Every structure is written in C-alpha cells, then in structure tokens.
C-alpha cells in the first residue's frame, strides 16, 4: 500500500453528484452550514415562544395551537409544553448549531485548504457524516409531530425522567425515544467527522506545512476533533443504554420503587447518577467542542485586522491543548446539586478553576495582540472583539460557579442560564459570525456588505447584553430556571425584568434578519471578491475565490513560513504562507 492515498477523484458530473451527494469537502461544509442555519432559526423561534410565555404568561400566542393542540390549548403554553420547547431549543442549539457550524461546517470547508490538501482523507466517510447528521436532525424535529410532542427532560435528558417512558409526562413516550435515537445518530456522524479531520490534518499536509506552521483555526479544529473522538464515543453507548431502558425493559438508569403517575415502575437496581456521569463526561468536553473552533477562528482572524502577529503563538496552542486535556476532568461540576459527596465536589472544583488559567491566558493573548495595533475595523474584526467581550463576561461568572458552595445556591437559577449562554452560546455564535463575514468572499466569491455587517454587529452586540446580563441579576435574586411562569409567587416582582429580556430577545432576533439579508443578497449582488481581500497569509487566500474543485488547480502550494507574518516582520506588510502567490509588496 502506498504511503498516501492521493485521491484525484475527477470533478463529478450532474446536479445530484455536484450539489447534493457531493464528495467535495467544500460542498459538504456548505451543507453543514445550511443545516446549521435552518437549525438556528428553528432554535431561535423556540426561544422566542418561551420568552413570550415568560413575559406574558396568559396571553395566547397566535397559531401555536395548530402546532400543538394539547401543549398550547388556545395558544397558551402549558408548563409541560414549555419544558418541551426548552428541551428542543437546547438540543437543537447545542448539537445542530454550535457543533455543526463552527466545527463540522467551517472545519470541513477550510481545514483541507488551510493544510494545502485537495480534499479530506476519506471523502466518502465525510459525505456519510453529513447525511447521518441530517437524518439525526430530521428524527429530532419529528418529535414535534408525533404522539404527545417533544420530550421535556432538557438537552441533558436526565434519568429517570428520560428513561421511564410515557408515564413521566407528555412527550416522554415516542418523543423522548426519538431524541435518544437522534443523538445516537449524531454521535456516529461526529465520530466519523472527527476521524476524518484528524487523519486529514496529520496525513495530507502539503510540502512545508509542518505542525508549527498550521494556522490556529486548523489547530483548533484538530484539537476539537480529538476531544470529539472520545466524547461522542461515550455519549453514544449512554444513549443506547437509555434506549434499552425505554424499549427493552432494562433498568440501567431507573432505581427501584419509583412510582410515577400512580404506577409502580417495573424497574429496579439502576442509577440516575450513572446517566449524569456518562452524560457530563461527554457534556463538558462538548462545551469545548462548541467554543474551541471559535478560539481558533478568532486567533486566525484577529492578527489579519490588527496587522500584527498573534502574541505567543506557541502559548496559544499549548493553552488549547491544556484546555482539551482538562475538559475531561471537570464534568462533576455540573453535578454539585446531585447529592454527590462534598469531597468529590472539591475534586471537581479544583480542575475547574485550573482550566480557567489557560482560558484566561488565551484571552490575554488576544488582548495583547490588539494592544498598540492599528486595527482595521471591518465586520469580522468587530465580531472578534465582540467574541472577546462576551467570552470574558460569561467566563468571569464561571469562576463563581466553579465553587461548590456558591454553585449550590446559583445552579438552579437564571445565573447559570446567563453564564452558559454568554460563554458557550453567544461567544460561539460571534465566532460563527466572524467566520462567515471573513470567509464568505472565499466561499461564494462575493463580498458581503460592510455597512449592513456593522449594523448587524452593533445591534446584536447591544442586544445580547440586554438579554443575558439581567439574567445574572435574576439568578442572584433567586429566580429559578426551567419554570414556565412566575405569576403568583415571590418572583412576581421580577416580571418587568423578564419582559425587558423578552423584548430585547425579539429585537436581537430581528437584527439577525439583517445578517440573513446580507448573506443572501451578497451571493447575487455583492461585488466580486478578489483572491485575498483581507490581505491575509494562510493558504485559502492563495487560491481563487471560490476555490476550484481540487482547491489549488492541480498545483499544491509549497509552504515556506507560518501564518503569523504580519506587520513588517521581514520588510513587507505581510508574507503569504505559500511563496507561489503574489508577493506582499504588490499591495
């Protein structure tokens, strides 16, 4: 067997092979991004429904009764249906947006180009990975239309609620089974993807592309793949055990003597805590699967607009590796309230605080990179700065939550909701926006509008702070999460603040229409993009916009330097990684 499979597959013929069942990593990457776009719109609408209900619990929402006659009779959401909406919002956002867009989407498109390869190492596995992800998404969304609707056990699917079947409430019958099947499929797809990313990074780098010369985004995708390879391999069997509990009568996660809906459950011997351990062993690394590609994207984009090399490139990569390693040692901090031994809680608290060290160093490296720089305030640069801002805002509350004594009070409140939406949700979304504005010229060959982009940034930036900052205050005031309404209890004085958050959420959501309009309009009406509109150095800017089928037109680039040559390091404003491209002095 030869040392390397050079896959010179010819460009496909026909619409189906070119645009639908394509083996080309660029098409598959765009398919992942399209899927994420559909998923993020779905997830956002679900969050609006929840917010509307929280702010005006008795006002009917027009049309909702059609979607769920039982869950929203007369258009008013029941407490159970509220939980269903929350479950679907969390599952769709975490799995099908935050994992698929920054990792599978942009990773698929740009990892092979950034290492100078023609395609992924296993194009067929790559295609399978996308289609399995799509099926997983359809299976999940099907839960809206079957039986009693979607499950209500949250994106974490805590047992025994998730394990006992339809006695546990509406949606816990077919809906919860569909959830478990969907996530099992998703795990398979992401395992195939991770295997492909790692092999491509290690085996298909072009001449001169040593590990130290890889762009930071490539490093982040590579490290994320390594995390995913282990994390999804643990969630998959956990979901299969959950399915067995639900359909085959086993009791892995169901203890003895459980009476639900006046019926003694025919199970004994299982442990709900076992599910929490298996889930969070996946779940915490998953947080980093969502955010590390953002780290890489920001580290890749910031120097381009700062016109300065990234500060401490090796430290950056060391920090990413350290975060990846530590991400496996902290899962118990999600379980401080599970009744675990306080001694174990301390054991999980220490690495949780330790992991903030590399995360802080990374942030300081970004800030150090822009220190003294003449920043070019383009839209992608603004989203990078926004990323740093929301990551710090959300990260600082992480210091509080890492301590079991404080977390015991805050864990069940909106403080945690505000924390993880900032640090994992909004930060990752800002990474996705930065990547979209930065790479759209390369992917579609046309520039997006800067004016609209800046409007989009400022409205979104102000909007997310209005949505999530007050949640910290709500949490400190004792506002519990996962409740569908606060009409007649001690939380009634909080309702005006909830109304403010709801209005801000609708406003921020509406601002995303600017982004959608810009994205669609630029594909047809945008000015033609040059090969290297941002004067960046990495290999994707050495090829045409958009790149040809084999990425480099049959001439694989030869890499002569790292991606960090900005700011007159060797007499020029910047130096491309591949010498074959136009010299920097042509500027």
């Amino acid at each position: 067997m030869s040392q390397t499979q050079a896959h010179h597959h010819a460009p496909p013929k026909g619409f189906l092979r070119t645009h639908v069942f394509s083996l080309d990593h660029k098409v598959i990457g765009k398919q992942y991004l399209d899927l994420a776009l559909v998923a993020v719109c779905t997830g956002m609408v679900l969050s609006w429904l929840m917010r509307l209900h929280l702010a005006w619990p008795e006002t009917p929402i027009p049309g909702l009764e059609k979607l769920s006659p039982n869950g929203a009779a007369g258009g008013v959401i029941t407490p159970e249906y509220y939980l269903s909406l929350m479950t679907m919002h969390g599952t769709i956002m975490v799995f099908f947006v935050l994992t698929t867009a920054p990792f599978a989407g942009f990773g698929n498109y740009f990892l092979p180009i950034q290492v100078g390869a023609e395609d992924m190492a296993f194009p067929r596995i790559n295609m399978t990975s996308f289609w399995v992800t799509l099926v997983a998404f359809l299976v999940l969304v099907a839960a809206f239309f079957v039986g009693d609707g979607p499950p209500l056990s949250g994106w974490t699917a805590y047992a025994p609620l998730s394990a006992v079947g339809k006695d546990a409430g509406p949606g816990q019958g077919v809906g919860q089974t569909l959830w478990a099947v969907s996530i099992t499929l998703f795990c398979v797809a992401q395992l195939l993807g991770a295997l492909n990313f790692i092999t491509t990074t290690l085996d298909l780098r072009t001449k001169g592309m040593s590990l130290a010369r890889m762009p930071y985004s490539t490093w982040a995708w590579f490290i994320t793949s390594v995390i995913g390879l282990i994390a999804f391999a643990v969630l998959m069997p956990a979901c299969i055990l959950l399915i067995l509990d639900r359909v085959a009568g086993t009791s892995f996660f169901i203890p003895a003597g459980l009476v639900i809906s006046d019926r003694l459950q025919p199970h004994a011997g299982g442990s709900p805590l076992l599910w929490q351990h298996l889930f969070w062993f996946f779940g915490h690394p998953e947080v980093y699967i969502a955010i590390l590609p953002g780290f890489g994207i920001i580290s890749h984009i910031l120097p381009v607009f700062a016109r300065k090399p990234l500060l401490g490139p090796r430290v950056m990569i060391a920090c990413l590796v350290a975060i990846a390693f530590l991400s496996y040692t902290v899962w118990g901090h999600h379980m401080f309230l599970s009744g675990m031994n306080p001694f174990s809680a301390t054991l999980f608290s220490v690495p949780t605080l330790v992991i903030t060290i590399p995360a802080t160093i990374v942030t300081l490296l970004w800030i150090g990179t822009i220190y003294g720089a003449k920043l070019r305030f383009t839209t992608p640069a603004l989203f990078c700065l926004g990323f740093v801002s929301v990551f710090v805002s959300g990260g600082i509350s992480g210091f509080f939550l890492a301590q079991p004594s404080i977390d015991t009070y805050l864990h069940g409140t909106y403080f945690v909701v505000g924390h993880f939406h900032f640090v994992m949700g909004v930060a990752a979304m800002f990474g996705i926006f930065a990547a979209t504005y930065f790479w759209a010229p390369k992917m579609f060959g046309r520039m997006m509008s800067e004016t609209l982009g800046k409007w989009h940034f400022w409205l979104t930036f102000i909007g997310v702070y209005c949505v999530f900052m007050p949640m910290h205050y709500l949490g400190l005031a004792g506002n519990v999460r996962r409740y569908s309404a606060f009409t007649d209890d001690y939380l009634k004085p909080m309702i005006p603040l909830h109304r403010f958050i709801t209005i801000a959420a609708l406003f921020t959501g509406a601002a995303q229409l600017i982004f959608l309009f810009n994205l669609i309009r630029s594909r047809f009406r945008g000015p033609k993009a040059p090969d290297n509109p941002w004067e960046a150095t990495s290999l994707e800017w050495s090829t045409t916009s958009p790149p040809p089928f084999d990425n480099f037109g049959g001439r694989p680039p030869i890499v002569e330097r790292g991606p960090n040559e900005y700011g007159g390091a060797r007499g020029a404003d910047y130096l491309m990684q591949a010498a074959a491209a136009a010299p920097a002095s042509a500027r």
Partner: protein
Amino acid sequence: MEGSPYGIPSRKLGMWLFITADAATFGAILFAYGYLRLANPDWTHPFAFSPTIVNGIVMTVVLLTSSLTMVAAVATAQLGRTSAGVRWLGVTMLLGIVFAALHLREWFAMIGAGWRLFQNPMGGSPLFGATFFGITGLHLLHVVCGVIVIGVITLGFRRGRFDAGHVETTALYWHFVDLVWMFVFPLVYLMNVR
C-alpha cells in the same frame, strides 16, 4: 502529492482512531457495569466453573489463537505469498465463527434458564442480565462484523483488489476485538463466579 510525514497511511491512521473511539465506548460500558455492580448489593454470582468458565476458557483460547493466525496472515501477505495469506485469513475467520458459535450456545442456554435483559431467574438484581447481554452482545457484534470484514478483505485480497496494507489494517481491528475480550472475560465472567 508528498508522502505522509508520519509514514503512516491514512487508512491505518483512521483505523487507529476508530480503535481509540471504540475503546472509549467499551470503557464507558465497562464503567457503567462496575458502577451498577457496586450500587447493587444483591448482585448475582451465577457462574459455575463448569460449564460456564470452562466454556469461557475455550472461547478465550480460540480468540487468542485467531489473533495468532491473523499475525501469520499479515506476515505472509506482506511477503507477497498471497495464497498462504488467504489460507491464514480463512483460518482466522473460522476461529471467529467458532467463538461466536460457542458464545451463542452459552447465550441460548442462559436464555433457556430464564435470563433476560430485564429479568434475573436467581432473584438478584435484574441488571445482571442487562449488563451481561449488553457487554457480551456489543463484543459479539464486533466479532461478527470482524468475520464479515475479514471475509470481504480475503476475497478482495485473493483477486488482487486489496493489498497487504488492507490485511494489516483489518488485523489491527481484529487484535483490538481480542484485547477487549481480555477485559470482558475477567470482569464479566471471573468476577461473577459462584
């Protein structure tokens, strides 16, 4: 395109990564087993030396031998002795089938005695059946898939469609399945001897 800087072909690296993920999967299942075993004071110890452990020892010997014949298959394939390689692959497949047959015979005997995924005829924790069939079932699935893959590779190798590299990559998987059994046998069988 340049040769791989690590000198490891993509397909082989892919197999190693699959094995890494699969090891995590088995690790998770065995962790769950240990967790549930400790959590249930009424854990059952049903296995007698004869027939279960004797049968298990025979199965272990058969599977270990199949790894040995796999080594021979890879060695002969790499030397270019195609027909010898095909013969050794055939012996490996045969041993895999014997292992699966012994395993299934044991399963059917236990099912006949009333063991189910959710039922323990000896009155102890019902999780014994769930973990036993779950873990050995996952391993058996790997053995059956392995036999099928070796079959496909053998046919292709004889016709020249596959080379010694394919045989070696398949062998990696087969040795891993063997290695997993070396964890399953003591943890699931020997620790549950009456």
